[in-house]
């Protein structure tokens, strides 16, 4: 495995399988293990420049279950609000002895910059519209848990692909694992040069639904939308929202995923989100396990300089 986890593309097939198998073993220990002593004495810093509940608490829980010390640093109400740069913040945290920095930042590429300034490991917890590799890992883990395998699994990712780091990481990771990914989005929310991605693209949701094993709904990210990408929410919902009627088109075994937080009634109807096919709650639970596996594999062993 690489020293840092910045992009899902950094992971080879073997790396991904090692992470997923490690997570599976962590999850299989029949009864809830209170705490493992593995990362005792190591410090994990959660450096969050963007609001997040799920990812930050998930990383925090994962680190704590491995007995690491956790420092939460959020930009709001901190020295960042006083104008401190990312570099200076990073050096401060470094001086405090951070063994790993989990960073979320609104600028794509911030985690990669960070790797030049600190000696600890860097984990990307979402950077701008670039990537969110641990989300892709937990999605892959959830698919494997529900459907058994990923090779040849048909995954349809629907919605605001343009702004979605979750979609980018998932396309890369699922392609590494041999799944067939199709992106479905309104033309205005389909990224440029999507032909170069290891996936297919389509504008017709209903046709894709019928042949999907997994449908992954993306959140409509109002906060990143500076222009009008679609006329009205109602029109978006009619063409790209997943409601009970559309869900009925899916094959019997298919599952519905959503990385959260959901806009109920926009991209996903409440009755779909709460149905048996929805893995949304399972994804959150798996998030902790998969992040434990990532932290263990990155921090648990000897730090080999020549990776």
């Amino acid at each position, binding site marked *: 495995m690489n020293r840092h986890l910045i992009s899902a593309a950094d992971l080879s097939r073997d790396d991904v399988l*090692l992470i997923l198998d490690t997570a599976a*073993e962590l999850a*299989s220990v*029949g009864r809830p293990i*209170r*705490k*493992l002593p593995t990362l005792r004495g190591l410090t994990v810093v959660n450096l969050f420049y963007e609001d997040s509940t799920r990812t930050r608490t998930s990383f925090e829980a994962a680190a704590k279950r*491995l007995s690491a010390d956790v420092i939460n640093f959020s930009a709001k109400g901190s020295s960042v609000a006083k104008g401190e740069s990312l570099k200076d913040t990073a050096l401060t945290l470094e001086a405090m002895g951070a063994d790993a920095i989990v960073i979320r930042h609104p600028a794509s590429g911030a985690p990669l910059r960070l790797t030049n300034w600190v000696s600890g490991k860097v984990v990307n917890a979402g950077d701008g519209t670039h990537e969110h590799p641990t989300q892709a890992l937990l999605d892959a883990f959830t698919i494997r848990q529900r459907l058994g395998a990923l090779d040849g699994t048909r995954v349809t990712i629907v919605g605001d692909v343009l702004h979605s780091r979750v979609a980018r990481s998932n396309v890369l990771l699922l392609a590494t694992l041999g799944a067939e990914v199709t992106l479905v989005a309104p033309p205005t929310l389909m990224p440029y040069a999507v032909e170069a991605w290891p996936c297919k693209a389509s504008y017709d949701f209903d046709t894709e639904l019928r042949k999907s094993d997994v449908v992954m709904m993306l959140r409509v990210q109002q906060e990143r939308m500076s222009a009008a990408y679609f006329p009205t929410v109602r029109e978006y919902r009619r063409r790209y929202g997943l409601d009970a009627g559309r869900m009925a088109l899916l094959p019997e075994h298919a599952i519905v995923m959503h990385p959260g937080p959901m806009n109920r009634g926009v991209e996903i109807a409440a009755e779909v989100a709460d149905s048996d096919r929805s893995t949304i709650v399972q994804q959150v639970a798996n998030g902790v396990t998969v992040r434990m596996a990532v932290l263990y594999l*990155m921090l648990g*062993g000897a730090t080999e300089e020549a990776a």
Partner: protein
Amino acid sequence: MCAMRPEPVHEGWKAVLSGEEIRRALSRIAHEILERTHGGEGIVLLGIPTRGVYLARRLSQRIGEFEGTPASVGSLDVTMHRDDLRLRPARALQRTQVPPDGVDGKTVVLVDDVLFSGRTIRAALDALNDLGRPRTVQLAVLVDRGHRELPIRADYVGKNLPTAQRERVRVLLEEIDGQDCVLLGERDQ
């Protein structure tokens, strides 16, 4: 089984236990366990991956042959509890599988292939602590090669094998290596 295989497979290694001797050692250990635990009431055999798990299964089967019912058996991965984790790159985890009624109040017999420094067993005791509170914990090993670094001693030993620190002991088992035998060799070969 070693004697039946062509020699080149184990070049530089000396066979110290044959398949037949392993079989006999395990039968003896199974008898000793039954004797010490008064018929094996409430015992759980927990093998330490990789090879300890197969040895635990064999012991359970052997106990079944002697007493009618096989002893409950499981596996205990100690990776996350090791004290030498930071000396090597992170290792893949192995399966931990505890019988459905757990280990609380049971007589747990840890089973491993080779007892050397004792650090694996220390980690196993910690890992076991997270699973519950056994009434007693005992230790069965196929080979005790000495050089303990911690105050740990096995209750059941297949063979005491005097070794030099630099030597290596390899246990091969039918289930994964295709044959049963214990080999002794020099390090770095």
